[in-house]
């Protein structure tokens, strides 16, 4: 199973409030994990990816951060949300040992910053 659990499904937060989105995955150990953001009418923007515990690569400088405290847990955080942080956030995983495997995605979290 490559099941990915994301929660919450929907979130409305005021500007300046903190954020914590959690993603947990099942299946093979040491997966590659990703956080993407999909803004309205736009494609998927890669925010962070991780190849292992504590290993985070950031693709876009912004007020978001990511952490991987456990092998199958990937967390997206912010200390102070901006209006521009609104969007649809997707967590994804790939099998770490095979290069051509596709990514599996979670159901996503729709974040609205008001």
């Amino acid at each position: 199973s490559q099941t990915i659990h994301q929660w919450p499904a929907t979130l409305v937060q005021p500007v300046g409030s903190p954020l914590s989105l959690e993603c947990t995955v099942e299946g093979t150990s040491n997966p590659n994990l990703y956080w993407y953001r999909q803004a309205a009418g736009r494609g998927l923007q890669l925010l962070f990816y991780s190849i292992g515990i504590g290993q985070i690569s950031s693709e876009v400088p912004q007020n978001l951060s990511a952490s991987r405290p456990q092998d199958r847990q990937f967390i997206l955080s912010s200390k102070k949300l901006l209006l521009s942080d609104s969007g649809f956030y997707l967590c994804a995983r790939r099998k770490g040992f095979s290069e051509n495997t596709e990514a599996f995605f979670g159901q996503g979290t729709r974040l609205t910053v008001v």
Partner: protein
Amino acid sequence: AQTVTQSQPEMSVQEAETVTLSCTYDTSESDYYLFWYKQPPSRQMILVIRQEAYKQQNATENRFSVNFQKAAKSFSLKISDSQLGDAAMYFCAYKGGGATNKLIFGTGTLLAVQP
């Protein structure tokens, strides 16, 4: 840096007809992988088809096939005998070979299927 470009924000096709979605990419790598994903209204991302750059033969999956032109850095998706259930956002994606783990997506093409 690698980039993926989908120049068609929206496309429309009649049911049972054929449609081709375009994708171009830019990379200096010789070994990489390309994917097409489908995102229906449920927002769940679904893999449609994949292509390894080292393979000259175009990948096919039932009604879905690709036209992979490595020299032109082009990777188009052809959907034959279009069905109402094909209506979705389609994303082209690139992943580099070797130790590269980034998976980069294009901006997507919204496909409408007319009955």
